[in-house]
């Protein structure tokens, strides 16, 4: 009891009445019949909107005060919600003033039901939302801009990536060349994987496949450097180790701290059905030769961009029709599911089973299998290139 007396005492300090509280509440107040007809309205609402009481009460519905777009929203969202959940909150609409100007407001509505549960009338509060709406428009604009620049960045990443990975390897007479690539995750970051196949002389070709450490713009810069340096170096030296040494020097002198692994194959396609291959692998997994059984070519060397004088031994082999040489990045063997790696054995077993496939299909088959192993999401970029000598020019 004492508390109530106390409350009354405080209330008495204010020159306040229920009537005044309603009329001059800090928000507009409307009571409407089920069809929206305005039955009662407070002074704050009239001041806010510029309407006369006589023009509203019994004459207008609340929804008729709204801009047309908002009126559709009222009929399709607002009114149904009031009937279904006895009210709505924080609906943003614009009230059209008598002079045609628009007032952005936020409204809350609470439904009052009769004894049978039918809608008797609605009480609606109306808050001036001019500043809030201006701010929200800023936010919306900012979000649209952010989405646009994200789309542009993705586009740029894709364009860059495409330049590192020719979608269609060139047609090499006497050799079936196929490649496949799958970017890590959603593919919105440029990866460091690259491959290239180009001609250096009559019947002389070079196939390279490499991996620059890291991702993003920084890695992309090094990837571009590596790819173009190897193309240029291949014209002045026939030795894979020589070309890779040139790239190592270029990396060392560029001041880049990123390292790079590359497998470099010089291909001599002089007679049908046989390709003579000279290989070097700088810090990179050796290619796998499939001649019935699959085995890794015995070649390994230091990675590039770290040492002044990397050791880069070369291996020599002949690949004949019916056989296949498979180059791949570590995204294949290090594909992981829980604690288990995809691994070289799984790759070799797959290549043995599928060695009859054309090069492009076989490369795609390997990539798909690694992605499937990782339950559909690639943790790292996966690049695969397959070279198969053919006896008949197609």
């Amino acid at each position: 009891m004492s508390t109530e007396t106390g409350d009354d005492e405080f209330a008495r300090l204010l020159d306040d009445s229920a009537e005044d509280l309603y009329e001059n509440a800090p928000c507009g107040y409307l009571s409407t019949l089920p069809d929206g007809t305005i039955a009662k309205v407070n002074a704050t609402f009239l001041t806010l909107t510029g309407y006369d009481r006589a023009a509203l009460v019994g004459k207008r519905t609340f929804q008729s005060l709204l801009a047309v777009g908002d009126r559709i929203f009222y009929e399709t969202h607002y009114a149904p919600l009031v009937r279904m959940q006895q009210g709505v909150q924080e609906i943003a609409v614009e009230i059209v003033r008598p002079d045609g100007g628009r007032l952005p407001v936020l409204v809350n509505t609470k439904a009052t039901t009769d004894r049978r549960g039918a809608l008797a009338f609605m009480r609606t509060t109306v808050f001036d939302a001019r500043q809030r709406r201006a701010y929200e428009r800023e936010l919306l604009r900012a979000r649209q801009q952010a989405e646009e620049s994200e789309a542009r960045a993705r586009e740029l990443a894709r364009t860059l990536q495409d330049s590192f990975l020719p979608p269609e390897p060139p047609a090499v007479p006497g050799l079936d060349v196929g490649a496949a690539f799958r970017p890590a995750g959603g593919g919105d970051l440029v990866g460091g994987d690259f491959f290239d196949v180009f001609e250096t002389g009559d019947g002389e070709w070079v196939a390279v496949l490499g991996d620059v450490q890291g991702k993003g713009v920084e890695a992309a810069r090094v990837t571009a450097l590596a790819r173009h340096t190897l193309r240029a170096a291949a014209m002045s030296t026939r030795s894979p180790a020589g070309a890779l040494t040139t790239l190592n020097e270029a990396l060392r002198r560029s001041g880049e701290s990123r390292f790079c692994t590359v497998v470099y194959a010089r291909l001599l396609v002089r007679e049908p059905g046989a390709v003579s291959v000279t290989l070097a692998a700088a810090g990179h997994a050796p290619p796998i030769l499939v001649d019935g059984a699959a085995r890794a070519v015995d070649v390994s060397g230091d990675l590039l961009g770290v040492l002044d004088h990397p050791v880069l031994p070369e291996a020599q082999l002949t690949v004949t029709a019916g056989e296949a040489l498979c180059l791949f990045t570590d995204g294949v063997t290090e594909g992981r599911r829980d604690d288990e790696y995809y691994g070289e054995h799984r790759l070799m077993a797959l290549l043995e089973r599928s060695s009859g496939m054309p090069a492009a299909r076989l490369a795609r088959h390997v990539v798909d299998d690694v992605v499937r192993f990782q339950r559909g999401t690639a943790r790292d970029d996966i690049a695969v290139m397959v070279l198969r000598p053919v006896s008949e020019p197609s």
Partner: protein
Amino acid sequence: MGVIDRNHVTETGSGQPMLFAHGFGCDQNMWRYVAPAFAESHRVVLFDHVGAGRSDLSAYSPQKYASLDGYADDIIEICEELDLRDVIYVGHSVAAMMGVIATGRRPELFDKLVLVGPSPRYIDDADYVGGFSAEDIEGLLESLASNYLGWSSAMAPVIVGNPDRPELGEELTNSFCRTDPDIARQFAQVTFASDNREDLARVTTPTLVLQCSDDAIAPEAVGHYVHQRIAGSRLVHLRATGHCPNLSAPDETIAAIRAFV
């Protein structure tokens, strides 16, 4: 995912099937005061259009739902999946025209058509009065955008991904009428840009048109137009005002439908 989950199909009762389709804005809850009245005598089937309510949002395709035909296809698929025959189709608002398209395409599936607040075209065109201008529809799109500010795609799973815990969705304010803002935007565009006046003449199914008083979305003249273009259709004026008699005057709506079926 099957049709049943895709469209969150729910059913009660047995007998001749009645298929209730909701319009633009909310979901199958729009029929909550009307559909139960028919469950004693009919097999009552409710569903959400893809993109609305508890439908599978991942089934939404901007290409498929670029016109009302995609929605009409879904209606036919629901009939086939549940093996519904002699269907009494009850469509509110834009779903009325979906039913017109579906019955025009597969008349043998349908026994009767009830169109609640139909409009074959919302935008005025030469002599035709739909009630809206193209600018009005722009205004609606803005209204939608400003009322979906709080939406993020992260909320979608909360609303649609917990069919076994519906209270999670209910907690969200205004949840019956919430969906992904991009989908709501396209549905609004498709709805208000639709022009199905030609389809009306193809209807051979006995049709009831329910016209509300003072309906801002589907004015009286539009109801008359639909009635005139569908041969043999019956037009009933409801005393109910607004666009949703299924919510504002369920008893009157039930009585009108019952008298027809």
